[in-house]
């Protein structure tokens, strides 16, 4: 609900907001520029200031102090009206008081789009939209982070979605302030606010004398120059006229002969707030704030563009056409947050329809078995948003589902889509599966998950589905058409070939890119160890993801591959000889990498999971304390990176290395040595340490259990570590 609200408001208001923001950025520079040239302020009273100005320019009509602290005097040069910025030290003119035409034009454009009152109302609507977007965005950010507690933790995710979140978090305070003050200023301009204190009644009686000595007027002597707003002198030759004084605390009149105070009213709170709002909005008197607001405004075009891209990407993944609900034998319900899950649903629908099934695709919020008389199976594809919440398109589903009764002859499968780096991975989908179990729905397939839109996870689940249905199909999902490159093999190091468990470390050259390609972003993107490489094997469209053991700076691509029995991709990779090439693309995985700093990093892995961990160690030039726990079969067969590990330990890139071998006289798995070292690990983690786990699912589950036991005495849980980005897994 909040999300679609945010989206539609953003789409409609984007052009207006970007226009206003860009002019606001230009305007933000003026107060700073003025602050650089303004004559220094003086710790003097208004009496002293007025006396100085009057002695320098006897025809002075008015002295004003702008919120920025600039003193301007209006006087005459002969018959000609003149004005100038005054140096309070001398009272003499020290520069032009005229606003530059550019600033005037920009101001006019920024507040009214050169359309006068109509424009003022349009920009006010823009400010209101900005406010609504800021507040709804705030809630979405909190949801994305996994709750308000984690609001200030590093942002997770990739691509434009992450950019949107990062920029909005930085720009939010400025945008909130700008929009709130803009609305207040509009309200004062149009007189929507209650009248402030009115001016005091003009004195009926004056002394009739003229020529008071300003420097000796008690009222003026008590007011510091910094509290002045304006002092108007009486009109020449009009003995009934008076001095009109306006300050931050109120306004009143002074006799021009005696200097007596002839009337005073205090400023109302509305006036004071209006003054403050103007200062905050324009940065006058607070040049640094003006610049800060300008920088925040710079975020508006970025947010508009990234928001639009995220939305378009979600739409492009498409919606499948489907059989009417009443005729369908298979009901496919989708709960998608960004729209990517819809793409998976379309792939599934295409595959099932090709097998002759009559598939109805719908949104999960439309769950209603009474409308599906011919259906025999329901498949629920559920994305999870942030802290395990239901996506907007499935609002109310869980409530309806909990109240539903299992229908005989109708079985159900739940597939969750999520990101393991979030605390409640597939939380929403898991809850659906639990509810289905409790309500007695017959199970079509066990609950399963797809991590980060992994085509492999989806294909694996698809094979199980095909088997259960007694059909023959492959789910070849290509989330987005990836731009692939050719990588030539430089070298390979083989392990365990003699024990029929070939594992190899493959090193590939980076494809050559011209300067032009690099400048236009067509080259290989920057990557680091822990990022993923999607290898597209010959004879399949389906890419397989491997974790990178090297970064761009290493100048090569390195991966660890174990030959799987009958594995198409691993078979081809492990058969490559130097000079041969593979087709692949790089995909960022920023959640899985060491946090920068001096805090300890605990690297835990087994088998080919050593790849990214070795990459982290290799890149650890800063000698951040990294502790490696690594499990292999036997030191003689698959001690991957053994030489490098001892070297890195010597030069300090690794603080410690602990090995577990499962096929020796005293067999141990990596989770066993983690459990044995629980006390030490607990201390490292309590000291702000981070845990990175890479390897098979079972190993990771064992490690997680061992760590959880070790952390309990410290009062910590993996969930909180995960939420703080201090526990991350890369499992397969």
């Amino acid at each position, binding site marked *: 609900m909040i999300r679609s609200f945010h989206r539609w408001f953003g789409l409609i208001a984007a052009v207006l907001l970007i226009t206003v923001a860009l002019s606001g950025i230009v305007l933000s520079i003026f107060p700073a520029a003025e602050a650089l040239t303004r004559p220094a302020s003086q710790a003097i009273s208004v009496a002293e200031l007025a006396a100085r100005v009057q002695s320098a320019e006897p025809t002075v*009509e*008015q002295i004003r102090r702008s919120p920025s602290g600039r003193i301007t005097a*209006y006087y005459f040069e002969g*018959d000609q*009206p003149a*004005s100038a910025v005054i140096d309070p030290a001398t009272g003499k003119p020290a520069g032009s008081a*005229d*606003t530059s*035409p550019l600033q*005037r034009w920009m101001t*006019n454009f920024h507040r009214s789009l050169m359309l006068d*009152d109509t424009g003022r109302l349009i920009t006010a609507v823009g400010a209101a939209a900005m406010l609504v977007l800021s507040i709804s965005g705030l809630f979405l950010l909190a949801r994305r982070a996994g709750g308000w507690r984690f609001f200030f933790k590093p942002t997770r995710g990739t691509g434009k979605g992450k950019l949107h979140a990062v920029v909005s978090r930085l720009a939010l305070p400025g945008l909130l302030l700008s929009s709130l003050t803009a609305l207040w200023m509009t309200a*004062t*301009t*149009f*007189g929507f606010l209650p009248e402030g204190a*009115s*001016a005091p*009644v*003009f004195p009926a009686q004056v002394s009739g004398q003229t020529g008071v000595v300003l420097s000796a007027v008690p009222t003026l002597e008590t007011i510091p120059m910094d509290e002045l707003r304006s002092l*108007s002198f009486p*009109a020449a030759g009009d003995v009934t006229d008076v001095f*009109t004084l306006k300050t931050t605390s109120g306004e009143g009149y002074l006799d021009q002969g005696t200097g007596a105070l002839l009337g005073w009213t205090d400023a109302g709170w509305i006036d004071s707030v209006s003054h403050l709002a103007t200062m905050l909005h324009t940065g006058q008197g607070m040049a640094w704030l003006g610049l800060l607001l300008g920088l925040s405004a710079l975020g508006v075009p970025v947010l508009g563009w990234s928001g639009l891209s995220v939305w378009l990407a979600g739409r492009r993944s498409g919606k499948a056409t489907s059989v009417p609900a009443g005729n369908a034998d298979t009901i496919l319900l989708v709960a998608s947050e960004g729209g990517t899950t819809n793409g998976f649903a379309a792939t599934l629908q295409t595959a099932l329809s090709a097998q002759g099934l009559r598939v109805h695709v719908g949104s999960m919020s439309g769950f209603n078995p009474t409308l599906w008389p011919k259906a025999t199976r329901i498949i629920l594809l559920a994305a999870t948003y942030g802290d395990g919440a239901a996506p907007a398109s499935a609002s109310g589903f869980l409530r309806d589902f909990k109240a539903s009764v299992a229908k005989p002859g109708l079985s159900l499968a739940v597939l969750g889509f999520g990101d393991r780096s979030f605390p409640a991975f597939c939380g929403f989908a898991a809850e659906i599966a639990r509810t289905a179990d409790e309500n007695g729905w017959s199970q079509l397939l066990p609950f399963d998950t797809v991590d980060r839109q992994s085509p492999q996870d989806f294909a694996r689940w698809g094979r199980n589905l095909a088997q259960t249905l007694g059909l023959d199909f492959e789910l070849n999902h290509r989330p987005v058409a990836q731009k692939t490159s050719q990588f030539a093999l430089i070298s390979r190091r083989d392990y365990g070939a003699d024990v029929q468990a070939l594992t190899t470390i493959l090193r590939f050259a980076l494809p050559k890119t011209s300067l032009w390609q690099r400048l236009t972003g067509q080259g290989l993107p920057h990557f680091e160890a822990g990022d993923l490489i999607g290898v597209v094997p010959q004879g399949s469209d389906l890419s397989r993801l491997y974790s990178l053991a090297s970064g761009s700076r290493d100048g090569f691509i390195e991966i660890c591959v174990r030959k799987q029995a009958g594995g198409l991709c691993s078979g081809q990779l492990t058969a490559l000889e130097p000079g041969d090439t593979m087709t692949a693309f790089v995909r960022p995985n920023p959640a899985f990498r060491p946090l920068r700093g001096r805090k300890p990093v605990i690297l835990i892995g087994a088998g080919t999971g050593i790849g990214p961990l070795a990459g982290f160690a290799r890149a650890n030039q800063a000698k951040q304390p990294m502790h490696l726990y690594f499990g292999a079969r036997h030191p003689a067969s698959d001690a991957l990176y053994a030489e490098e590990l001892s070297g890195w330990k010597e030069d300090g890139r690794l603080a410690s290395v602990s090995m577990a071998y499962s096929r020796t006289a005293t067999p141990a798995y990596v989770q066993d040595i983690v459990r044995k070292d629980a006390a030490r690990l607990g201390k490292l983690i309590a000291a702000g340490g981070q845990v990175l786990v890479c390897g098979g699912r079972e190993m990771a589950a064992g490690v997680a259990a061992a760590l959880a036991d070790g952390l309990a005495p410290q009062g910590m849980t993996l969930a909180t570590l995960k939420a703080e980005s201090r526990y991350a897994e890369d499992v397969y």
Partner: protein
Amino acid sequence: MKSLLAMLAVTTALTIPGIASASQVTFTTTMRDYGGPGAYLAYYVTDASGKYAGSLWMAGGKAKYYQHLSGWTRATAGNTAEINGITGASVGAGRSLSITLDLADTLFDAGYQLHIDSAVEDMRDAPNEIVVPLTADGVGKPVSGTRYIADFTYAR
């Protein structure tokens, strides 16, 4: 075009003996190219003793800026009821404003003076920029302003 005859009688103490005849008077104000946003102009009349007699026109719609028309504010204590129904848009630099009003003939050659206060955002206030006696002789004779108004003429 507004009828100011009734206005003046109702909103001020100004009384016109007998049934006065009225005639159309056109005020034409031409602004200088002062390089700024639209000017606010207040047109008002004082009697022979210098006492405020009534407002004729207010160019500029936002009451919060009226305090900068300090002559008018002093005369009326800033009472916006004085200009109900006789308010128009502010006048841009280099533009001119023509107002045609039905004015009582008794206002002419009786010591009444027309005042124009002007003010522009972020620029100096110019109260009483124009002060001109309403006389039969003065008709059609341009008067120069000091700050924003290039010239002002009234015609019967």
